[in-house]
């Protein structure tokens, strides 16, 4: 009875989304992204989020490399990375990651290296959580699409 799975999967997805909203991990801008998806661009959210992952991991690597340097002093560069990270997080509705970037930036403006290291850890953690949850979301969605395809074929 794969057809029944579609409704369950949809419910699962909505539940996960609701949880992420409730936790403040995602905000309305994620819904905006979903609104931009349609038959002409059926994988839009997935594509944009993957670009986001790719860019974010680059930024996180850059931040870590900067901070690991004993002689690090380029807080301005750090600020630039953080602004980029904030911007893209904001664009996809990744509210919590965005907020952590904001706090991180405040610390970097105090030229506080130890504080920055701590902030980076929080950021990496938040990003990881977001990535896992979004992967989960995409997985459920993928299953739902497949289950729906099977159901319609059976009905033919």
């Amino acid at each position: 009875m794969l057809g029944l799975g579609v409704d369950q999967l949809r419910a699962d997805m909505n539940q996960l989304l609701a949880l992420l909203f409730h936790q403040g991990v995602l905000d309305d801008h994620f819904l905006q992204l979903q609104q931009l998806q349609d038959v002409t661009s059926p994988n839009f959210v997935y594509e944009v989020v993957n670009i986001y992952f790719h860019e974010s991991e680059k930024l996180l690597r850059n931040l870590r490399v900067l901070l690991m340097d004993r002689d690090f002093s380029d807080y301005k560069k750090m600020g630039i990375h953080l602004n980029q990270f904030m911007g893209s997080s904001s664009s996809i509705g990744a509210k919590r990651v965005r907020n952590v970037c904001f706090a991180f930036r405040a610390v970097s403006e105090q030229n506080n290296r130890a504080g920055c290291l701590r902030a980076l850890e929080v950021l990496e953690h938040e990003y990881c959580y977001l990535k896992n949850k979004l992967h989960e979301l995409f997985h459920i969605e993928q299953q739902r699409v497949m289950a729906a395809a099977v159901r319609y074929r059976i009905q033919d």
Partner: protein
Amino acid sequence: MARNGVFSRKNRSAKVETLDAISVDSHELHVLAVDDSLVDRKVIERILKISSCKVTAVDSGRRALQFLGLDGERSSSGFDGLKVDMIITDYCMPGMTGYELLKKIKESSTFREIPVVIMSSENVMARIDRVLYSGNNRCLEEGAEEFIVKPVKLSDVKRLKDYVMREEGEDDSEKGTYKRKLQQDDSDLSSLSSSSSSSSPSSSPPSSSSSSPLSSPSRQLKTTSTV
């Protein structure tokens, strides 16, 4: 001042009555989007396409100028495929900022009539004090048509598109009304910036002309009405 070829829609005689009755004909607005963030480019591109616009998305001010043929290596008249109806650019970009791009566009006799919209993240606007009206970055005084706060929404682009299309079909007084409406929509935005200094709009750049919407009375209203 050369308007030829910039607003290709000028040649149409269709009158725009109401928003509902706007007929796009077969011409879609061509928007040049400038943003260094790939995520944001993808999103704005999609929003514009859904809003029935043609989109060219570039990743820097330099590329934007290249596209327009303003990068010093001008081709003489090869703009046929490149008619741009609106430019929407990020403010914070490495290399050339959105503000610098705006200035370059307004300095060009060919392109200064194109509405330029600046996108900025809210916190950038709050931090760069008075980005809108004074200091080193007088975007509105330089002739930016509008500011929109990132992340950009579908409704933002719909509004911009309506404005650009309306601009073609109505006289100045109507434009003024619409611009004032836009101003009201953004009133919570302008409250982010601290009160404007007494720097008056009289310092508008020589490139703005009296017949352009950029120096319409409503724009003066806009620059002085922030408290």
